[in-house]
């Protein structure tokens, strides 16, 4: 760095100084809000610490406990994995289908875009409350509508088998957010490619599989990573609606972390949980990124 600095002209040095000065708030923020917490979490995860007494070093004990004798860890991992596996593919596919519909060039489409995007901007708490009421087993809209066609609706959030799918359905309601990003990707595909394909006699399906989908893979890739991180972080729904129940069916990982850290004040163990989730999320991101070379198509 110093040699690079010496080779600069005085004017360049002045510019560089201004650049560093402009960046300084971010650099300070990086140290306080990213570097410090990650390193500290790592240290705390190797201690037993209840916030009242100073942390006591216990080496890898927290991790040993986590992986060998913690049924709650297993439950939370199971619930979270199931939720990701259920909601992520549905959200990706339905989001794309919705975006394809919204991309049709017919009058009035803007209005529909507005409507479908609304669920994506409302808070998790308001959505959760709305859905508790919407999915009431007795007088809720869904079960009422189902009863009209002679189907007895399930108990949704209050049923052992339906609680997790209910939360997944709720998250799919927010699919408009994904659709908007796809839509931007769709509108970036040059029209001349479709015209050329049409002249060559390619039908609608062929055009979708050969042009739309390949050129949309960068957007899909981006969306996959964003949604993946988001799905792992599911929390508010468990907090507001189910409290992790019934029988730990929706005991999501972050909810477990919250209870350990800020209800039981097992800060050391909770740090280990937090770090584990970070590693899982980073691992998934890196995995998607590494395999992306095989399926993500970049124009240049």
């Amino acid at each position: 760095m110093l040699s690079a600095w010496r080779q600069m002209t005085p004017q360049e040095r002045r510019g560089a100084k201004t650049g560093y000065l402009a960046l300084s708030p971010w650099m300070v923020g990086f140290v306080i809000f990213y570097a410090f917490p990650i390193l500290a979490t790592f240290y705390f995860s190797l201690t037993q610490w209840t916030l009242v007494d100073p942390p006591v070093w216990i080496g890898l004990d927290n991790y040993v406990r986590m992986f060998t004798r913690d049924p709650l860890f297993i439950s939370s991992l199971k619930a979270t994995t199931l939720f990701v596996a259920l909601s992520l593919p549905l959200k990706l596919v339905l989001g794309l289908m919705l975006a394809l519909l919204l991309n049709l060039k017919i009058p009035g489409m803007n209005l529909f875009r507005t409507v479908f995007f609304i669920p994506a901007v409302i808070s998790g708490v308001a959505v959760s409350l709305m859905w508790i009421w919407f999915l009431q087993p007795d007088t809720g809209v869904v079960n009422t509508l189902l009863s009209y066609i002679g189907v007895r609706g399930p108990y949704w959030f209050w049923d052992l088998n339906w609680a997790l799918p209910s939360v997944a359905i709720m998250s799919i309601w927010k699919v408009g957010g994904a659709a908007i990003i796809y839509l931007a990707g769709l509108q970036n595909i040059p029209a001349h490619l479709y015209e050329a394909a049409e002249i060559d006699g390619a039908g609608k399906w062929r055009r979708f599989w050969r042009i739309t989908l390949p050129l949309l893979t960068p957007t899909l890739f981006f969306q996959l990573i964003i949604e993946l991180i988001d799905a792992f972080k599911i929390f508010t729904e468990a907090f507001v609606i189910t409290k992790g129940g019934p029988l730990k069916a929706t005991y999501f990982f972050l909810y477990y972390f919250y209870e350990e850290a800020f209800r039981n004040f097992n800060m050391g163990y909770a740090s280990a949980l937090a770090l584990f989730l970070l590693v899982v999320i980073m691992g998934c991101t890196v995995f998607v990124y590494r395999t992306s070379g095989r399926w993500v198509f970049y124009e240049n």
Partner: protein
Amino acid sequence: MRTDDRALSIQQQLRRSAAQRRRRRLVGHALVYALMIFLALLFMLPIFWMASTSLKAPREIFAWPPEWIPSSPQWGNYAEAFGKYPLARYMLNSAILVVANIVGGLVSVPIIAYGFARFEFPFKHVLFLLMLSTMMVPGHIKLIPMFWLYQKLGLIGTYWPLILPAYFGNPFFIFLMTQFIRTIPRELDDAARIDGAGSWGILFRIIIPLCRPALTVVVVFTFVWVWNDFLEPIIFLRDWDSYPISVGLAFFQGRYSVEWHLFMGATLVSILPILVIYFFAQRHLIGGLASIGIKG
């Protein structure tokens, strides 16, 4: 004569096939509209049901079969909800947090982005990548260490933990703003420099005024995020009085779980500011999201 005939018939055929195409397109449009309207109704059903419940009399809310549109809307429910729950207080708290965060973003983000977009210095590329990678760091990892730090500083129970980070630049906004500043021609900077403006003068007189669209994205997104934030307020705040609306609502539920008509009214009121800003700034919200999607 014969050629005329043939020309006529070709013309007729063309006209007929054009009519056919038009008809087919019309049918197609009708099908698409039908599908879209069906889907839109389906998506709006939870919100409609919330609004409908909020206008019902207490004895109607559990009635079966349910009344879709209350025959005598009880507008008084809203006054009752405001009287019974500290809704106004919580929304004011949320508004304070929103404004403080917006100011933080508007102060910090343009300066930092200006540094990335306009100056050359050693390690710039590495720092930029580092900044981008922090976008991927899930927020939960910060909670315990920051809780510890804020406790040492005596800030638990105050708004500082929920406001401070905004003043150090959110990486998503920095990225967005950097990309935006890069599209502003450098000739403008040069012209201002010749007129005697310094680097900071250029930022405040040339760059920031031209960054209005990107700054609007910062305002709108901050509004939505801060208004909706839940996890950090429940951890860093202590007193009922200081809760933002998201936390306040979540805790009403435990306390007054039977009064669903008031409760749905309160929920609806709590999302109104978001809906209003969404309708006014839709373009910026969608544009901001779209731009990260494309570059991601």
